[in-house]
């Protein structure tokens, strides 16, 4: 199509890529019922395509934008109403008019995105010619406004999810002798799970260490992600000057007010590895889901400390282990553990299948997360895998 890609079209493309179940369906159902029309739909107009993201009486999906009526609607700021599409030369030859479902009547209201530009239209279609009364036009405009709100909420959520994703480490840590990978799949756009890694100078003066973190803030969604961002940042700060035990204790003190005020708690597993020797210090703050595994068996890296944000005081002191050259350190969130029936033996049995030196840590976390997602995980799902090279 010869039209330039505008901000609104880019926005529509982004919205169409991430359509939440049900979010827009209610308003479309309402439109269909109010107007007694056989077809109602929310169509987003992207660069070259129309994306039908919610509909009644018409399949959802993608079609060329020039075959749609809504692509005309989004070029104006008011309702487009066509009594009989067959008698309108702009539309008489489009497929939905010349072939099934052979629509005759169209009314559509443009809906704006956050950019202020139109991203799509809410439309009703009928198989017989008709006209809308004044009140009906007002009603259609109101329904369009309702959808604009839904779209705005979705865009905010998508952006929050992007911000959270961009906070995750993406590049290999600047330290030799270790391979690490992690992945989060939030149940919604954003969530309370996160992982992190970075290189610290251990205050013991014995050199650089790789610090690895997996945190899980109670709850899901945007609110949990805000708290997760705080815990992540505070722990990063304290980790520069303290051993892992002290860093977690200081993080608890610093975040106490915010966790308590919001009635949230956060489990944390924090490890600090010397890749050269395999020496590993760790703290387990109520997380419980870290293991070192090899074909010989597995051992949990587990302590009896509480999560952060509990109504009673706790202390957190580090424990120590050694990561052998043929061993894999795996930390997951409870979203993974739930689909394994909360059983370590079952988890280890599954893990044995991927304890393959040929698989990269990246492939291993992908296998874990994909397994959890494909087994109907309802929670955020996170995995972190580390080994010496």
């Amino acid at each position, binding site marked *: 199509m010869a039209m330039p890609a505008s901000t609104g079209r880019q926005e529509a493309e982004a919205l169409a890529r991430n359509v939440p179940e049900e979010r827009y369906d209610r308003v479309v159902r309402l439109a269909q019922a109010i107007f007694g029309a056989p077809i109602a739909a929310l169509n987003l107009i992207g660069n070259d395509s129309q994306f039908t993201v919610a509909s009644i009486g018409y399949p959802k999906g993608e079609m060329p934008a020039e075959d749609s009526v809504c692509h005309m609607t989004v070029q104006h700021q008011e309702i487009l109403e066509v009594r009989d599409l067959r008698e309108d030369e702009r539309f008489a030859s489009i497929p939905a008019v010349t072939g099934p479902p052979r629509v005759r009547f169209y009314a559509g209201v443009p809906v704006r995105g956050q950019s202020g530009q139109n991203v799509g239209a809410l439309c009703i279609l009928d198989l017989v010619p008709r006209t809308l009364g004044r009140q009906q036009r007002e009603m259609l405009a109101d329904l369009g406004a309702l959808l604009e709100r839904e779209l705005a909420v979705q865009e905010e959520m998508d952006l929050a999810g992007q911000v959270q994703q961009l906070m995750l480490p993406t590049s290999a840590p600047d330290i030799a002798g270790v391979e690490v990978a992690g992945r989060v799949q939030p149940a919604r756009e954003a969530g*309370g799970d996160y992982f992190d890694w970075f290189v610290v100078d251990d205050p013991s003066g014995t050199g650089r260490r790789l610090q690895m973190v997996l945190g*899980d803030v*109670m*709850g*899901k969604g945007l609110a949990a992600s805000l708290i997760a961002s705080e815990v992540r940042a505070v722990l990063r700060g304290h980790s520069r000057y303290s051993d892992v035990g002290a860093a977690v204790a200081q993080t608890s003190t610093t975040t106490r007010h915010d966790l*308590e005020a919001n*009635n*949230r*708690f956060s*489990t944390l597993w924090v490890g600090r590895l010397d890749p050269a020797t395999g020496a590993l210090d760790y703290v387990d703050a*109520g*997380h*419980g*889901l870290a293991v070192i595994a090899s074909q010989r068996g597995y051992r949990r890296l587990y302590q*009896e*400390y*509480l*999560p952060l944000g*509990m*109504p*009673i005081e706790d202390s957190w002191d580090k424990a120590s282990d050694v990561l052998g050259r043929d061993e894999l350190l795996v930390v997951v969130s*409870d979203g993974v*553990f*739930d689909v394994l029936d*909360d059983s370590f033996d079952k988890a280890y049995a599954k893990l044995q299948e991927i304890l393959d030196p040929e698989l990269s840590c990246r492939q291993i976390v992908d296998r874990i997360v994909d397994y959890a997602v494909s087994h109907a995980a*309802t*929670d955020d799902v996170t995995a972190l895998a580390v080994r010496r090279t």
Partner: protein
Amino acid sequence: MSFEEADLGTHVVLAPEGKFNLVAAPPLKARIDDLVAAGRSRLVVDLGAVDFIDSSGLGALIGGLKSARQQGGDLRIAGAGDQVRAVLKLTNLDRILAPYDTVEEAVHDW
């Protein structure tokens, strides 16, 4: 999800059922807050009919425990099944929210 409520004079028993999660937890937590605000701060949550708890459910229990204790009372849990006990143990929350086998045992000293 709805929950049963029984006022036994010295304490109130709340009994959620099914999945105690993001959907079910907020109404129960709101009810606990109302009860505590009305001076009923000795509470038992009977988890005998709960087959699944997630972190939001745990959060509601911990939050309820906190408000009950602030008013000089307590919140205790009873009848937790395997999954609930496993999650409490995993997160070490059984240290502050000890699971009693029955409501009677939970209220033995009230």
